[in-house]
């Protein structure tokens, strides 16, 4: 097997899987205008993971680490869903943004009182895509499939809430429940993805392809195809860039997504004609 495939094969598979699910979730995040949600949830999951390591002395990727991360995500999901139903003076995005700061400070706080600080932060930020293992890919495939199926089953209520998210606060119990369900499912995907790729990559996979597709007014199916092509292409280019120019893999993929966004924004008119969409 050529060395480039040996080195980049598994990272590419991981990016591929993340592209599929995060791309879809990104459309909802954009409609709800909760751009901070993934960084905040990822940071909450990171707090859980750091707490498991520093307070409960968990080792490596043990089950305890995932349980703590998931616990923190559940807490955050419940908080966001409930607070949105009660507070209308400031936007939910502001509340999520502040919860991110609190979570990040908690992470730094826990690391500050424990040794081994900055490598851990570097890891959370840029992840360890290059060191992917087959087990991680298989677990992610299984979890993402289950969650993808859950999203398929709940697509109607979740889409209807996403479409009317900015129109008013949600008072009914069922809206709070579906909101909670959305954030929990999103949180699980993010927790797992951040463990593999780091916060920045997950954020970029969620927001950038969805933004690129939103530049064109497309039908949902075509929109998803554009999102997936954009994300997979960026993974491919980013990984090659990192390989040949000796950069960290995660940030290189994000950079490729950013470049794609700039290119598409600049060439949106000919591309819109190509995709036959109204301008």
């Amino acid at each position: 097997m050529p060395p480039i495939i040996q080195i980049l094969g598994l990272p590419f598979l991981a990016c591929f899987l993340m592209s599929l699910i995060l791309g879809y979730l990104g459309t909802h995040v954009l409609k709800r205008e909760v751009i901070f949600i993934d960084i905040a949830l990822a940071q909450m999951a990171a707090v859980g993971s750091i707490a498991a390591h520093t307070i409960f002395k968990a080792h490596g990727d043990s089950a305890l680490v995932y349980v703590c991360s998931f616990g923190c995500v559940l807490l955050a999901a419940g908080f966001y869903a409930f607070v949105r139903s009660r507070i209308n003076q400031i936007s939910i995005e502001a509340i999520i943004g502040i919860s991110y700061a609190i979570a990040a400070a908690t992470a730094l706080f826990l690391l500050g009182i424990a040794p081994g600080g900055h490598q851990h932060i570097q890891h959370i930020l840029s992840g360890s895509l290059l060191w992917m293992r087959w087990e991680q890919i298989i677990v992610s495939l299984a979890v993402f499939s289950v969650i993808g199926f859950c999203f398929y089953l709940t697509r109607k209520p979740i889409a209807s809430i996403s479409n009317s998210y900015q129109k008013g606060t949600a008072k009914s119990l069922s809206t709070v429940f579906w909101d909670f369900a959305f954030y929990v499912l999103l949180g699980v995907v993010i927790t797992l993805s951040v463990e593999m790729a780091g916060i920045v990559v997950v954020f970029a996979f969620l927001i950038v392809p969805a933004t690129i597709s939103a530049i064109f007014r497309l039908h949902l199916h075509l929109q998803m195809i554009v999102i997936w092509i954009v994300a997979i292409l960026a993974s491919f280019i980013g990984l090659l860039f990192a390989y040949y120019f000796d950069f960290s893999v995660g940030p290189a993929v994000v950079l490729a997504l950013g470049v794609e966004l700039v290119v598409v924004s600049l060439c949106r008119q000919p591309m819109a004609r190509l995709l036959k969409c109204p301008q």
Partner: protein
Amino acid sequence: MTSEIVRFFSVQVALIAVVLVLHTYIGLHIIRRTLIFSDLVLDQLAAFGAMVGVALGVEYGTAGSYLPALFAVLFGALLLAWIKPKGQAIPREAVIGIMYAMALVASLLLGDKLRGGGTYVTKTLAGSMLWITWPLVTVTTVVYILILIFHFKFHRKFIDLAERPETVNNEKFWDFLLFVTQGIITVLIVPIAGVLLAYAFLMIPAAIVAMFTKKWLLAVVFGWTIGFLACLIGLCCSYFLNFPYGPSLVLSLGLFFILATIIRCLFPSNKMGFVKGGE
């Protein structure tokens, strides 16, 4: 020993008192217009600028490192004011969020090529407020007072920008000025307080008061008082319990925010109207 404690507290308290006035006011603009990510973009660009300075041989945290940071921030302010998506499909916050990811990625990629780059990324996150000196406080105070005078003189324009943007001529120009002032205070505060604390200073006191009042002056006065009290508590915890500095202050501010959220949830009010969020 006593004089050392007095010196430690007087310098820190003086700086925090000065910083919080302007941060609370600008924070109110950011919260009410849902430009939550803008501060992280400027913070991260300031940090990136400082890292470019390090790459060029300027020592981190010295007077010379402010210059590249200022350039980076001015560039960021220009982009923030200039790039404003048309239509509802892409929220402005999404564009700002992507800029943040790009700035962070630029820092991480640069960190790859710097000796001990990882530590710089962490340093810019956590800050080094413990090293504050009186000359630094003086410079910061003078610049802050100048910006305060500027904002006081043009407060009507900026408030219109938040409340009635359609009535403002040259909207992008005033937006740019808002981001430039935000950027200048960022350049001053990030090397001292770090990205996270600078963000918390800006967002948390403003978000707390925005939940309870729409009046600008009242909000600044109460925001400053609450922020100052929270910072004092954080400072004492950090000094006497030997907790990490920046995170202690953010967590203390965060506790006040959570308390305010609980109060608002227990006593919801529709009088102030729904914040639509986003632009």
